[in-house]
Structures are given as structure tokens and as C-alpha cells.
């Protein structure tokens, strides 16, 4: 299937650049104003408009070559109308006046089809927002040729080491605007760049990934080198017996696990009695070395400074030294609980309420190297895979290790191990954290990006082993 190890390389400079520009803010505002004007003409009581635009590109490679390479551009207008205690949403990607008017009418018609909801709140008025600059022109300017060049270098490295590279390099820009008939208006734009690379050295593999608004914040070739080195270390795995082990979880592994915890910090989840925090708020649920915030303004975070109703996001101290202290609130759940909204609501109407989406852990002063050096016997975990919830109240999660599981003995990595299945309570895990590294922006595959540290955790439960 593979004809040659030598790449045929036309000069990148001959490839014409492909550039896509987002609409300017005043153009977004004009779409919002058009919808509000049309709705007023129709006689709608209250109207909310979301305008979302993306221009993304993703270069995908496998078997040391690009095999998929895509770009998309699109804009949607989503309209929520309210009348007589009823609300509904209609969304279209056509922005001519007839299509917008039709969407308003669909929304109105849907709203009228349901029973009145006495708890439905009027839309919020104008709000104040913090300005943030997360639109990096160097990221927006990246071309298919730029991505191909970085991919080619990573593939060359793989070939040099007798390995096989696979992964993605994506870049893009997006923006969102929200306005309503009570005068609220907010907009936000950002860029994003991501590189994920798997290096395979049969039968082993390892992996590295980075994500940032600023493509200059990570070096593709360094990620490729890291994955390549770990893949080489991962050949000839030993089969170890299942059981409880001390584990050193790299940040991506921490992220993908704890990502399943945070929907439980939604006030609506507690009101619905589906949160593991029911009857546990204010208790010493985790170790005293665990403190967690939700902070959309943290320098390593991305995302808009407002929620689905246009409320400004607040910084919320979720866990203070192991004690769950605060929840996040939409306007509706705040109203029910007698609290102030924290700016974490989803777009309405919905049944889930809200969630923290910009998580920041307080880290520690350890490091992966120190954690390894302090471990008599344990496992270093690169990445986890296919994590699912087994028990919603004890927060038992199952999943697999993947792409690099290493045995640590007497303070050093001594071999690689076959991948394990785990069945582990997150509550127990966060009580058993022995050491934390500094928190950094991490990215995985199961959860959204967070600012998390590496963790050394005792008594992590591996229940079964697989064949590789």
C-alpha cells in the first residue's frame, strides 16, 4: 500500500493561500437588528437572536501522509421568541429577510403550541462585559500549505525513526453575537489551533496534543518528538495483574477523567436530584489539596465572556480545599434557588440549565519527574480512552489507558505495560491525590479543554487488562 518512504514535495510557495474572513462586528449587529425589527413588525413580545459564524480548517494525516484535508465556513442565526409565558427556538443558516421572517414565525408557532410556563423569566436587559482579546491574527492567517508543511516534518521524523505518524493539525476562527429586544447585545470572537499526534512503533504507540488560541504557543515538531520518544519506550509491553496501583496521571488523563464531574456543579442538576453533590455540598468530599474554579477570564482559557442568555460569566470558586462550596446558576435556576445568576446558562429553552465550562484547578509544586522519582511502584498514564459513567452518585467511571502506560519502580520508568481497564470513583480519586504539578492548559478527547495539573494518585483501581 505504501509506495515509497520518500515524499514527493512540490514547493509550498506555489500553493495559493486560502483565506477566509469573518464578518465584522457591525455586520453581526445588523443581522441581529434585522431580526429584532422583523419580529417587532410581526408583533412578537420578546425576541432573542444568536448569530454564530465559523471558518475552520483541519488537516488530518495517517500512515505518514495527509489523507483528509477539509475546510468549512458557515453562519447560523438562531431566534428565540417569547409570548404569554411560552418560548421556543428556530435556527436557520439563511440570512435573507424572508428566511429570517420565516424562522421567527416558526419559533412563534412552536412557542404557541405548548402549555404556559409560569416560571419563564423575561429576557435580561443590557449587561456589561469584560473585553478579551483571544483573536490571534497569526492563527487566522495559517494556510493549508502551512499545516501541510508542519505535518510533513512530523511524518519525516516518524519515517526517520521507523515509526508511523497519525494526527491532526487544525486552525480556525469563530465568533458569536447575542442580542435581544430589551437592548442586550454582546459579541466575541476567537481563534483556535490544535495539533494532535500519535506515533506508532508496532505494536506500541504514544501521543501528544496541544491546543491554544495562538498557534505560536506550541511547537508541532516538539510535540512530534515527544510522541516519538514515548512510542519507542512503549514497545514490548509487560502484562501486569489488575488491582490497585499508584498512578501518575499526565494532565490529559486528569482532564478527560474529571471532565465528567462538572455537570454535577450545575444548580439545575441538584434541583433535579441527578448530581453527585446532592446532600454533599459543604462536606469534605475531596482531599484538602483540591481547589477548583470556573474562570472564563483565566489567561489560559478560551470562550465567550457571556452565557446563552447573554449574562456575563462570573468567576466561581467551586471547590475550596476539598469542600464543594458553590454551584453555577442560570437565571432560571438562580431564581428558583434565591441566588444570583453566575453567567453559565445554556441557550434557552433547555432542560439541563447550566454548567461550568472554563475549569481551572489550583496546581501544586510537584512535577512529573518528581512524582516518578517519589514512586516505589506505580504506573505513568499518558492518556485515557472511552471513559463512561458506571455509577452517577459515586461517580464511578470506566475506561481504558491508551498510547503509553509505563511501569515505575524505585523512582524510575522501568518498562511499558499492557493497557488496563479502570473502574474508579472520581470522588475517591480526588481524595487520594498525593501530589500535583503546576496547572496548565490541557487538551484530551473526552472533555473540553481545562487548566489542570498532572496528579499522583494512590489506590487507583484497574479491573482488567487487554491484549496490547
Amino acid at each position, binding site marked *: 500500500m505504501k509506495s515509497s518512504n520518500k515524499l514527493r514535495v512540490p514547493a509550498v510557495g506555489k500553493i495559493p493561500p486560502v483565506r477566509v474572513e469573518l464578518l465584522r462586528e457591525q455586520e453581526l449587529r445588523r443581522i441581529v437588528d434585522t431580526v429584532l425589527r422583523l419580529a417587532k413588525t410581526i408583533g412578537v413580545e420578546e425576541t432573542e437572536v444568536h448569530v454564530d459564524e465559523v471558518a475552520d480548517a483541519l488537516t488530518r494525516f495517517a500512515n505518514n*501522509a*495527509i489523507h483528509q484535508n477539509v475546510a468549512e465556513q458557515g453562519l447560523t442565526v438562531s431566534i428565540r421568541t417569547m409570548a404569554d409565558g411560552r418560548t421556543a427556538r428556530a435556527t436557520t443558516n439563511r440570512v435573507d429577510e424572508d428566511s429570517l421572517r420565516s424562522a421567527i414565525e416558526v419559533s412563534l408557532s412552536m412557542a404557541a403550541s405548548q402549555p404556559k410556563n409560569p416560571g419563564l423569566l423575561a429576557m435580561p436587559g443590557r449587561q456589561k462585559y469584560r473585553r478579551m482579546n483571544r483573536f490571534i491574527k497569526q492563527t487566522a492567517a495559517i494556510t493549508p500549505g502551512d499545516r501541510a508543511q508542519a505535518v510533513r516534518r512530523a511524518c519525516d521524523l516518524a519515517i526517520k525513526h521507523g515509526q508511523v505518524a497519525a494526527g491532526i493539525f487544525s486552525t480556525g476562527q469563530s465568533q458569536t453575537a447575542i442580542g435581544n429586544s430589551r437592548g442586550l447585545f454582546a459579541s466575541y470572537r476567537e481563534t483556535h489551533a490544535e495539533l494532535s499526534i500519535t506515533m506508532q512503533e508496532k505494536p506500541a504507540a504514544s501521543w501528544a496534543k496541544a491546543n491554544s488560541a495562538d498557534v505560536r504557543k506550541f511547537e508541532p515538531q516538539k510535540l512530534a518528538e515527544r510522541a516519538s520518544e514515548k512510542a519507542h519506550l512503549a514497545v514490548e509491553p509487560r502484562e501486569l495483574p489488575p488491582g490497585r496501583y499508584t498512578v501518575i496521571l499526565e494532565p490529559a488523563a486528569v482532564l478527560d477523567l474529571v471532565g465528567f464531574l462538572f455537570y454535577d456543579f450545575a444548580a439545575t442538576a441538584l434541583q433535579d436530584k*441527578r448530581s453527585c453533590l446532592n446532600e454533599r455540598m459543604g462536606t469534605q468530599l475531596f482531599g484538602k489539596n483540591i481547589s477548583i474554579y470556573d474562570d472564563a477570564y483565566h489567561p489560559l482559557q478560551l470562550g465567550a465572556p457571556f452565557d446563552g442568555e447573554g449574562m456575563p460569566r462570573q468567576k466561581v470558586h467551586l471547590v475550596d480545599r476539598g469542600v464543594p462550596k458553590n454551584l453555577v446558576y442560570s437565571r432560571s435556576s438562580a431564581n428558583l434557588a434565591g441566588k444570583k445568576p453566575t453567567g453559565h446558562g445554556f441557550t434557552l429553552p433547555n*432542560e439541563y440549565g447550566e454548567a461550568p465550562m472554563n475549569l481551572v484547578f489550583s496546581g501544586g509544586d510537584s512535577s512529573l519527574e518528581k512524582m516518578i522519582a517519589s514512586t516505589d511502584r506505580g504506573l505513568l498514564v499518558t492518556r485515557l480512552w472511552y471513559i463512561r459513567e458506571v455509577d452517577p452518585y459515586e461517580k464511578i467511571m470506566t475506561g481504558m489507558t491508551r498510547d503509553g502506560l509505563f511501569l515505575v519502580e524505585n523512582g524510575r520508568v522501568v518498562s511499558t505495560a499492557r493497557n488496563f*481497564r479502570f*473502574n474508579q470513583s472520581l470522588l475517591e480519586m480526588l481524595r487520594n491525590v498525593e501530589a500535583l504539578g503546576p496547572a496548565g492548559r490541557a487538551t484530551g478527547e473526552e472533555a473540553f479543554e481545562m487548566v489542570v495539573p498532572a496528579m499522583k494518585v494512590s489506590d487507583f483501581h484497574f479491573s482488567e487488562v487487554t491484549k496490547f
Partner: protein
Amino acid sequence: MWDLCTRSLETARLRGATYADVRVMHQRQRDLTTKNGKVGTLAQSESIGLGIRVLANGAWGFASTDRLTRAGVEGCAAQAVAIAKASATAKRHDVAMVDEQPYIDSWQSPFRKDPFEIPLETQLALLLAADAEMRRVKGVTLTETDMQFRKTDSWFASSIGSRIHQRKVTSGCGIVATCFKGEEIQKRSYPNSFGGQHALQGYELIESLELVKNAAVIAEECVALHGAAQCPEKKGTLILGGSQLGLQIHESVGHPIELDRVLGEEANFAGTSFLTLDQVNNLKYASDIVNVVADARVEHGQGLGTFAYDDEGVPAQCTSIIQEGQFRGYLSNRETARLIGLDRSSGTMRTEGWNRLPIIRMTNVSLLPGNWDYDALIESTEDGILMETNRSWSIDDRRYQFQFSTEIGWEIKGGKKVRMLKNPSYSGITTEFWNSCDAICNAEYWTLWGTPNCGKGQPMQTMGTGHGASPSRFRNIHIGAAFSDR
């Protein structure tokens, strides 16, 4: 729409593409949910756009746009060619594909009642009635219901001359009762978990499922689970209900037979497969009574994997995957079929929408019915556990080791269901599991289940797949590992 297709194909050709295919898609979706007797989500959306895939300099490029003007589609096609030329700077061989005929056709999926023509009041009234029935059961702390409808028109054209229009209508619904008590949350769903049952049908699917009639049953079971015994950990006999077996097929047969995985194209994200090319016609995948097909044809049933043509312009087919226990074949496209020396694609290229590249996806990957009557299967089981309705699912990235848990279990002793079990789970190695199958229920108990939430690809695409299954029995299975340490 054909004008847009023609214009983009012509632009791609002029820019240097040696092959191109284009999809204009118009997608409509309606979502309804209730929670605790109140309307939750009430939303409708439509989206229309164009995506074009091109081969230039021997490599692929894809671009999409919602700007359906002359300038918009020409710019999109030119962008796709530029991207392909960038891809070519990091290629290792020129892309080649097996031949396929051009087709000119129009097809509409069969349905009796267009769900978009049914009044919303009717749809909401049904959900609210089921919601109310669940809330009548004391101890239930959360009730949820949902309905989802989709109507998709796609216009496919390719540079080999195909012009195919397809209209597909899908419907789905489900209800869930949850009970929080003490230090435990238990849940029961009908007719399946994670959104219920979904099929390539109209509103007649919703009416056939009898949500209200089944609401009290699952609510009572949900409450009763709190007083049920914990599922033990042991090696023993397992009987799986049809919907759970459908997901077992999805994860441990459907994904490993995707040829893009086998060839390493998903190594970074979705993973690879233990089904290396040397296994075809050599691997004893399952016991002799196991027959699995991947069948996208409407005669197999109206599943989420049913269509007339895939999104590469290849007609729907039935492919033998496991025949009397022997592994027979893969899910392929025109490119991967060529790579492994097949004559033809098995027709499994599917896209989530106009802004996504078609990739190899499951169609309806189904376990064919066996000979057993359900009652006879239970009566012939001396000691076993029946598990129904998925609660969690997980499998490794080469599809060997899996663990599933279900919402409810039943202990079978002496051929009878003797008591309810909570927190049931089972785990194993794929081929060992399928080789332990000793009984499959007959066609009377066979349902083509819909999995509406299969994620794959980068950017991520969510796809609906179908899985026909009837209750089946497996011997010597590791039961209860998920809670073994507690």
C-alpha cells in the same frame, strides 16, 4: 440545486481536479423534550449548504460553504482544489479508487406520516402524558421524555456523471425515569436509553412504541431497583436483551470492521482494529450460529443505516461480515477497497451534513435471527443473568476488551426469572465473547435498533447506525466487574 453542483464540479475541473463529487444538503430537525411535566427543549432548525471533495495532484481536498451563490460555490470549489494541492505536498502515493458506475436516480425513504406535518400540540401532548404517567409512581424524582425528527434532502453529483437525489426522514423518541434515594441514583428508560428508539420512519414509529403504556412500568422498576440485590461478580451465563445486544454489535463488530480503522487512518482518534487484513476468511470471530451482515438496503429494514446510495454515489449493499462464525469482510469505500484489492466499494461512505467529508460508517450492522423462542431460551437456562437497557459502554481502541453495564438485571434460576438485580455489568474480549454465543432468538423477537449518536472523524461527525438483534445467550462471561471493588 443541480446547477450549483454542476458549477462547482466545473470549477474544480478547471482548477485541476481529476475527480470531484459534491453534495448539496438541506437538513431540517425538530427536537422536543419534557422534564418533570414541563416542556424542556422546543426547537427546530434548518441548514442548507454545499460540500465538495476533490482529487488534485493525487491527493484529497474538501471545502464547504453555506454561500450558495455563483461566487460562493466557485470559491468553495477552488478552495477544495487548493487544499488538495497542499495535501499533495505530504502524500506517499496517488489516491486511486475502484471503479463505480454513474447513476441518475431519485429516492425517498418510505414513511406513512411526515413528522413535520404532525401538529406540535399532538407531539407534546404525547410526551407530557408519558411524563405524567411516570410521575404518578411514588419515589420517582426525575422524569424526562424526548422526540427528535429529521428530514434531509441531498443532491449528489460527481465528475463521473452521477446525479442522485435522496430524501430521508427519521424519527425517534424515548422516556426516562430517575430515582435518587439514599446514596444511589437509579434510572430506567424505554424503549432504549440515550434517546430511545430511532429509525428511518415517519411518525408511525412514535405511535407504535406505546410510550404512555410503558411509562408506569419503567417508573416502577426504577424505584424497585433501590431495593434490588447487587449484581454479583462471577463467571457465568449471560442473556442480553435486544437493545443491549445492538450496542454490543455496534462496538465489538461494527467499529472493528471499518476499513479506515484497519488501515490506520483513525489511529490518532477513533483507534485502529484487531481485524488485520490477514484475518479475513481465517478468523473464527464467533460461534457457528452467529451470522452478521452490514445491510443498507431497505429490504433489511428501515434503520438509521438504510439508504439507496452512500455519499460517494455507491448503491446500498448487503455485505457478509460474519458467516457461521467466520469473519468474512469489511466496511469499505472506493479508495480503501482498491487498497486491499477488492473489486468494489461496499458502499459505506456517509456524511453528517453538507459541511463534513464523507467517511466510512456503519450502515445496519445486524445479527441475523436464530431459532430460539424467547420463553424457551429462559426456560433452558439453569443459572444466569438477563441484562437489559444500556447504562454505560466502553471498549479499547483496538476493539478487544469491552465493558458494558445495563440499567436492570434479572437473576435466572431453574429456567425462571427469580429476582431483580441492580448495577449489572459484564466484560470480556470480543472474539471470546462472540464465540461463547449458544442461543439467538428468532425473527419474532428481532428489532432493528437505532443508534443515533455514533461519533467518529475529525472534525467530529455524529451518525445514526442500525443494529438488528434479538435476545441471545452467552456462556462463561465475566459478570459484575464494574462494581467488583466496592
